[in-house]
């Protein structure tokens, strides 16, 4: 097993441990850039939310809190199964790893399915900013702005989810080919970091978009 791991050390690293630590560090730095990437949107959202609390509340009232909560639960569960997948890779249980990866991907797809159902409902309600937006109440442009941020941020999040599913597909392929062992499972851990990070972003999106609309 140790030999197998050593064979996978790239030539510019001296030890597998150095490689694992470096890759983990690189992944976390990447996640820090992702924090700033979404962070810019959160800042812009906060500014406008502060100025237009009524209009943003009105926008929030258009959210389906039940679907949103279910979706959050789905995503948290997928994060859990992903963490368990990483765990099973670490203890060298490839069959459980394969199973958990598939479950995680399925949950990711369920999330996306529910999300696109919501989009479709908003579309039916004429809540597509710019092209298909129809709102008769006061401060329409600010309500529209809420939806701009809603689509932009959840859309970007959904894009990250789709990328995540793609990454898991690759990991799944490698897991089924038997690339991972108790000595070498860094790629699974990296994918797990990414997946859980996307979950974290969603937890905040859920808080700012879904939970504010019931008392406008």
């Amino acid at each position, binding site marked *: 097993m140790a030999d197998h791991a050593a064979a996978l050390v790239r030539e510019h690293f001296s030890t597998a441990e150095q490689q694992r630590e470096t890759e983990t560090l690189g992944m976390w730095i990447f996640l820090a850039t992702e924090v700033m990437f979404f962070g810019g949107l959160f800042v812009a959202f906060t500014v406008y939310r502060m100025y237009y609390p009524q209009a943003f509340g009105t926008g929030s009232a258009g959210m389906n809190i039940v679907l949103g909560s279910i979706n959050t639960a789905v995503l948290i569960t997928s994060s859990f199964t992903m963490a368990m997948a990483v765990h099973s890779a670490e203890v060298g249980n490839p069959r459980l790893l394969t199973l958990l990866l598939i479950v995680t991907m399925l949950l990711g797809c369920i999330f996306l399915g529910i999300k696109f159902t919501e989009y479709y409902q908003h579309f039916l309600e004429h809540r597509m*900013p710019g092209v298909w937006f129809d709102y008769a109440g006061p401060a329409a442009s600010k309500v529209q702005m809420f939806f701009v941020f809603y689509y932009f941020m959840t859309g970007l999040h959904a894009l990250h989810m789709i990328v995540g599913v793609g990454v898991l597909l690759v990991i799944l392929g490698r897991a089924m080919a038997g690339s991972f062992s108790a000595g070498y499972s860094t790629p699974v851990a990296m994918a797990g970091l990414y997946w859980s990070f996307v979950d974290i972003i969603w937890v905040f999106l859920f808080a700012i978009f879904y939970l504010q609309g019931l008392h406008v």
Partner: protein
Amino acid sequence: MSTTVAVPVETNYLTEKQGILSWLLTTDHKRIGLLYFFSVTAFFFVGGFFAVLMRLHLLTPQGVIVGPETYNKLFTMHGIIMVWFFLIPSIPATLGNFLIPMMIGAKDLAFPKLNLASWYVFMLGGAVTLWALVRGGVDTGWTFYTPFSTTYSTTYVVGAALGIFISGFSSIMTGINFIATIHRMRAPGLTWFRLPIFIWSHYATSMIFVLATPVLAITLLMVCFERLFQVGIFDPALGGDPVLFQHMFWFYSHPAVYVMILPAMAVVSEIIPVFSRRPIFGYTAVAYSSVAIAVVGFLVWGHHLFVAGESVYSAMAFSFMSYLVAIPSAIKVFNWSATMVKGSISWDTPMLYAIGFLGLFTIGGMTGLFLAALGLDVHVTDTYFVVAHFHYIMVGGAVMAYLGGVHYWWPKISGKMYPEGLARLSALIVFLGFNLTFFPQFVLGFLGMPRRYAAYPDEFQFLHVLSTAGASILGVGYVLPLCYLIWAWKYGKEAGPNPWRATGLEWQTASPPPAQNFDTTPIVTRPAYDFEGMKEELHLG
């Protein structure tokens, strides 16, 4: 050292593999550094061409060659190309890429494939931007201020912004790679305080790459979104606030200025000790000041907004921070000067560039103090004073250091010496031409000449003519190195592993280095710039 010299020349990184594919698919940091080197050189001359046209146009008050539409596109494309496709990748992605693994005794960067990907992403971004340029150009200014960029401009804003968005990911990849490499790949014995200052500065630069670039990416994405779908994010007609765009844009773009100058400081911090044969004065202060610039540099962006509609109290906070960030820069200048005192000063070309950098950066930095003073900024902001200020930093500072660095490491990169006499002459030409171009612009700005004007009142003509005259001299100064460096690549005399008798690890391997950089991983036992301790090896004294 003797063992490395014995390595046959045939196996260096340039000759180990042949053919175009061996370059396009390389994961060798040195080759990728060279790929970047060729690309940014090309972009530099494209951006420079726009600058020449602008300066020619401004010879007369009404303008001589182009109409205002074209002039506006010229300064926009000059800014976009010079900032994002030359200055930001210039030193880090070429010299940094080439040297960081060698300086820390590693075989390569931590993520070689990511490094290659960053070059492709950079080129893709460049291609998209150039495509926007060929389609008809952009006229928003490199700052893309809304609502002009989102609603009123009729040019190819989305194309240009998308190109910058894409190339931003190359910065992020480079940053991640550098940080991980510097943390995890150092040779045995190479502690943080034995690192060359070059590494410290690039570490600080990478922090900015990683933490600031994503904000620019998301901001430009919002601009594209707003422009494509005509929805309100920054547009006041739809409830948006254009000043928010400026906040987000400068949250990236002010730290980006430090992305340009920190690597320049890195280069100068290498050149001055070597050509003075003296360890850098106050190593700890110089090292920490790089990190301080990177961190405090994130707290000052609002000084671009003093007259933009920002609150007065917020402006005061940003002004205060701006003065704080000037302190580490001042410390560096004092330390560099002190390094030279009682040294053994050579007048080789890299040192001439470093001394030129010192003078021009000092002027550029000090005029920054004028701009940070709230009451003064009101008058001089958005005038030629600002234009002169940032050109002193970015051209007088970053480009001078870049040229100095290219000359200093040219023997290592190519294995050949450049023609010293010609190089000194061109360094002198660059220095004189630069000052003649940009010093008059300080005066213009003080007199009230606003920037981005295609035509101007008659009383400013004399100074504009001076500036254009200087630009033509500066142009010669930039073309000369291009010619003789190409010549030297083929015909220069062999440099040997350590022509400058420098102390850094990169000089302890062959020139050009072998693909693996070192035959055996070096073990470091000394601090950086330890001429005294290495005098036997370097045959000094």
